[in-house]
């Protein structure tokens, strides 16, 4: 604290507690919150120890209910969505952007747009987490491309980033990944892992991925599909197909 800024007549004593160096009225009020003061009805003080709404949201509300609450301009709901999925949105943005500042910008855009246009999320078309990640991925790819374009203008040289397969290994081995997901990734063929890493976490187009791996473009697409299908089976979320 800067000296002299605390202009209150309530001077802290040696224990940092305020002392009674103030007007009689104020002392009267101050005493008011002591036990037995009827004038201010302090005995009826209703303390609030839990934020209303917030705990309810974090306890049980499903994502659809949260988005509906955002639609009703409930800011607590946006906070709860961020609490649930902000980490994943951040982690994907950071991987694709490979730049913390750019990634923060992406996250900011994703949540600001959810706030502005929550109606764009249609729960009948999928879940909220994948939807947010899809938004983040597209934003991140756009951000990287415009950043690369900007750099290209300066350097007159387009440079593809080197393969980041190692990062994929580390990202899926992160403690944040559930065991079943790690096992599912382990079951993937290395070729499938590489294309998913480069395209999804690396933000590369399938053409760039093909160039980076020295593989035909059609093959890269097939591997992406095979990898995703294997992943789905291994994760056990293969549902009845139409």
């Amino acid at each position, binding site marked *: *604290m800067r000296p002299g800024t605390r*202009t*209150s007549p309530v001077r802290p004593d040696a224990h940092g507690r305020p002392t009674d160096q103030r*007007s009689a*009225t104020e002392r009267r*009020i101050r005493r008011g919150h002591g036990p037995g003061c009827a004038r*201010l*009805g302090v005995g009826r003080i209703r*303390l*609030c*120890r839990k*934020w*209303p*709404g917030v705990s309810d*949201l974090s306890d049980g509300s499903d994502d659809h209910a949260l988005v509906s609450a955002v639609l009703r*301009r*409930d*800011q*607590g*709901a946006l*906070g709860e969505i961020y609490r649930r999925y902000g*980490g*994943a949105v*951040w*982690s994907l943005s950071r991987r694709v952007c490979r730049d913390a500042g750019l990634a*923060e910008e992406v*996250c*900011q*855009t994703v949540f*600001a*747009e959810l*706030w*502005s246009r929550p*109606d*764009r999320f*249609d729960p009948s*078309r*999928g879940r909220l987490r994948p*939807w947010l*990640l899809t*938004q983040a991925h*597209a934003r991140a*790819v*756009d951000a990287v491309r415009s950043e690369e374009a900007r750099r290209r203008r300066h350097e007159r040289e387009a440079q593809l980033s080197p393969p980041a397969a190692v990062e994929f290994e580390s990202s899926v081995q*992160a403690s*944040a*990944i559930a065991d079943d997901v790690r096992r599912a990734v382990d079951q993937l063929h290395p070729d499938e892992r590489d294309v*998913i890493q480069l395209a*999804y976490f690396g933000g590369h*187009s*399938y*053409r760039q991925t093909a160039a980076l791996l020295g593989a035909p473009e*059609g093959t890269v*697409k097939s591997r*992406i*599909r095979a990898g*995703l*299908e294997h992943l789905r089976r291994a994760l056990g*979320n293969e549902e009845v197909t*139409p």
Partner: protein
Amino acid sequence: MSTFGTEHPLDDVAAYAVGALDEVEARIVEAHLAVCGFCQFELAAHRDALARLTPDEPAPPALWARIVASLPADAGPAPRPAADTRSAPPPGDTARPAPPAAGRPPTLRRLPPPGPAERRPGEDGEPLERDRREDDRTRPPGGGPAHLAGGPRQRQRPLGRVLQAAAALVVVAGLAVGATLALTGDDDDGGGDVAQPPATEPVPPVQQLAQAALDDPTSLAVLAGEDQQPLARLVTGDTGAFVVLDDLPPLPAGRAYQLWSVDEAAPVSLGVLGNGERTWVAVTVPESTGTVAISEAPATGEVAPTGPIVASGAVQPA
């Protein structure tokens, strides 16, 4: 190019799911997705798997504050219902559009609904890449990088003039939060020409006004901590509404106390109180406010409290 026509373009749907198609190819797949439930299902299942593959990592602590600061500047209507004459309007308040005269606290956080939902073809929930690109050109105000110290609303304020008027203004932040103005300088009771206050006359410090309110309070809330120890007071009187931070320690840089009404289903921000160095803070509190609480928040404020309740208490008529 893979299978189009009678068969399902499953390779392209997969490449689309990981965002690896170029724009033209993406549009072709989107056109197919619009009419093919099977491929819609495949896409959703791919995205589910990718979402599970994406690890959760702790985001930078400042990120949420940055998001809050970027929410549209019109997101927070003025905290004071028009009918409320109890609370003194802070200087600079006139720069803001008049709040809707709803007269109840929920208006503080019931932000204007998003603009008319002009649904574009194929947009009903499906995040098509084309739409996302279009959205790039229609980002909400403040969608770009925002510096915590200078959010959109802060830039709009006639800060220079207010400061010139010797009002030590702590503008605040919870940019999307309704009540975002906490005044630690002076106040012009009754809403005079606060945009151009007389620069020569010494204005009574907020402390004097608060003292006057304490001498003849209309209502008082004693905010106590967990151990029932009183830590702060919220007093309302003829001179306005004030928070007295009796016993709350100053916070480190970048942090601030934030006042909330906790009467609703979710906390409603009543403004940021500064970092605790100034113990007298003018606030704007709707008359119907029942229970209030103080949290510790980023200096910019936040739309919903992320920290625990520091102190709370009920507003009692004096």
